[in-house]
C-alpha cells in the first residue's frame, strides 16, 4: 500500500491545485481511466465543499487529502478540514431539484464512491471514501 498526504489552505485556487496534484500522483499508479476520472471529481467536490462550508469568512483554515492506494484498482481517500464540521450526517445526500443551483456536491461523491462516511475527531472533520474500479470499466 502507498500513502500520500497533501494539504493547502481552504481557498478555491489552492484546492484546485491540490486536487490536480493528487490526481497527478494517482496517474502514475492507477491503470483504470474511469476510476481516475471519478476520483478527480470526488476530490474536486470534497475540497470545494471544505472551501465553501468548513470555515467562516476570513477564517482561512487547512484542507488535507490523504490517499491510501491499496492496489491499482482500490483507493481510500480522506479529505479533512478543521472547521465547523457537518451540521447533520451527509452520508445519504438527496439529489437537488433541477432548478436548484447548489447542493449536488455530496450527492456526486455518494454516487461515485463505493462507501462514504464522515468522521469528526478532536476538531478534525474527515470524509472517508472507498472507491474501486468497476468490473466492466
Amino acid at each position, binding site marked *: 500500500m502507498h500513502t500520500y498526504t497533501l494539504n493547502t489552505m481552504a481557498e478555491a485556487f489552492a484546492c484546485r491545485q491540490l486536487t490536480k496534484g493528487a490526481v497527478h500522483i494517482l496517474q502514475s499508479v492507477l491503470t483504470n481511466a474511469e476510476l481516475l476520472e471519478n476520483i478527480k471529481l470526488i476530490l*474536486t467536490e470534497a475540497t470545494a465543499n471544505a472551501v465553501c462550508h468548513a470555515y467562516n469568512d476570513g477564517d482561512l483554515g487547512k484542507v488535507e487529502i490523504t490517499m491510501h492506494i491499496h492496489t491499482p484498482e482500490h483507493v481510500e481517500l480522506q479529505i479533512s478540514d478543521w472547521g465547523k464540521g457537518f451540521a447533520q450526517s451527509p452520508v445519504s445526500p438527496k439529489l437537488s431539484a*433541477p432548478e436548484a*443551483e447548489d447542493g449536488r456536491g455530496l450527492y456526486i461523491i455518494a454516487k461515485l464512491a463505493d462507501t462514504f462516511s464522515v468522521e469528526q475527531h478532536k476538531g478534525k472533520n474527515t470524509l472517508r471514501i472507498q472507491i474501486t474500479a468497476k468490473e466492466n470499466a
Partner: protein
Amino acid sequence: MTQLQFLEQDCTLIAQYVGELTLETAGACKKQLEEEIAKRTFESLILDMEKISFIDSSGIGMLVSLNSRIKGYGKSLFLLSPAEQVKKTLELVQLTEFFHILDEDDDALVLGSK
C-alpha cells in the same frame, strides 16, 4: 485572459467557453455571461461546451442559474456538444433531460452551417 468568446448569428448568440468550469472559475464565467446577455439582442443562447474539459457541481450550478435567467427573459438556452466528462457528470445529477442538449448533428440544424 478570457475563456469566453461570443458570436452572434441571426437571432442566436453563441458563447464558447474554454477550460474547466469549477468552483474556481464558475463565478467569473457567470458574471461575464450575465453582462453579455444583458447588452445583446438574441432569441436563443447556445453555450458551446465542446472545449469545457471538466465540470463540477459549481459549474453545474452556474448552468442552472444561466438557464433560469435565460428562461426569465423568455428566451432559450442550448448546451452544445458537451465533452464526455461533462456529459457524464450531467447524467450523474440527472440533468440531461432538464437542459436542451445539442450534439454536433443538431448543431448543423440550428446554425444552418457545416
